[in-house]
């Protein structure tokens, strides 16, 4: 027998707490509302709490093993892999690095990165359902193949996508987004969550600026509005231009964490 569904949900009830990736709500003390025909069971759980809990567990492991984890995100074709190759060449062997690469198919990126000498673990999300992002359990599985004692910096090259990866905590310390100037200066405004969630932006392919009508000031001001104060590094992974600032920033983040442990 079906009765009319009761409407006991409080509209516009704002939890004043920030519902960021590190907040977990598990109040299972079932506060119930009984009305004729239906019972409303309070749940109050983040849908992604299973991911968040796993990410937090990994964050603890990474800290115990003194590993700094960088989550690198971007849209496809922004030059993430080339940027990473050039970055590894400049920070190794002083920093002992390893890379986890997410791709829906193929091992092209992993093959390119392996030439740096760093251990590279390839994740093909195909096996996990052709996902649009890397989730914590996938990264956990990949990490099992790495000797964390021999690593200072673990870089996770996420799936090329400016939407979904921003929503999934993978236990990282910092997040960077690579945006190439060929994508247009309107991208930050179109994908605000990504630029809010990241700690630095790499504006890549600046060697192509003479051939584009990319408005650098507009791009910078748009990023500045979404995430005031976030460092923006103008680089060219092809020519190596602008890498000094980015490398310095990255080295400082790693050192600061390892020193604090």
């Amino acid at each position: 027998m079906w009765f009319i569904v009761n409407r006991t949900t409080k509209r516009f009830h704002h939890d004043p707490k920030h519902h960021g990736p590190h907040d977990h709500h598990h109040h299972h003390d079932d506060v119930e509302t009984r009305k004729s025909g239906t019972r409303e069971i309070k749940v109050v759980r983040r849908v992604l709490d299973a991911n968040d809990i796993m990410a937090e567990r990994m964050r603890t492991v990474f800290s115990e093993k003194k590993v700094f984890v960088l989550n690198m995100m971007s849209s496809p074709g922004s030059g993430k892999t080339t940027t990473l190759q050039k970055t590894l060449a400049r920070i190794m062997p002083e920093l002992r690095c390893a890379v986890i690469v997410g791709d829906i198919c193929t091992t092209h990126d992993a093959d390119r990165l392996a030439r740096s000498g760093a251990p590279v673990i390839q994740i093909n999300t195909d096996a996990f359902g052709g996902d649009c992002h890397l989730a914590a359990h996938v990264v956990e599985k990949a990490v099992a193949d790495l000797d964390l004692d021999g690593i200072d910096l673990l870089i996770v090259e996420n799936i090329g996508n400016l939407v979904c990866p921003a929503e999934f905590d993978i236990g990282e310390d910092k997040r960077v987004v690579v945006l190439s100037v060929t994508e247009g200066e309107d991208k930050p405004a179109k994908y605000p969550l990504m630029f809010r969630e990241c700690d630095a932006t790499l504006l890549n392919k600046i060697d192509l600026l003479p051939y584009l009508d990319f408005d650098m000031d507009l791009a910078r001001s748009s990023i500045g509005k979404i995430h005031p104060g976030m460092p923006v590094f103008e680089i060219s992974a092809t020519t190596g231009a602008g890498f000094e600032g980015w490398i310095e920033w990255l080295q400082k983040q790693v050192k600061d964490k390892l020193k604090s442990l």
Partner: protein
Amino acid sequence: MHEMGIAMQIVDITKASIPEDMKGGKVQRVNLQVGKLSAIVPDSLRFCFDLVVKDTPLEGAELAIEEIPVVARCKDCRTQWTVTEPVFTCKACRSGAIDILSGLELDIKSIEIEDED
């Protein structure tokens, strides 16, 4: 883009939240809060939800989505406002030091289950 995975998580959490004495009861409604800043498209989520509830206690249930506006508060001058465009600097004093009070939610608030009693 990952609405299918989200829909599956909602089914799992809902199934786990059905009290012992109501096992076997039909879930009529799931009340979900989705922040405007989250990367979830409500229509896509509803579509996926309707697919994944088949042969579960949620079959036929309504996914009620309450969209939560993005509300920010300035750490410097305490001004609070609703963010409607991708600008996260304080409206009053232009400070970039802000707290996001809401808009990132992806929470199941409650479930409603058919009760024969």
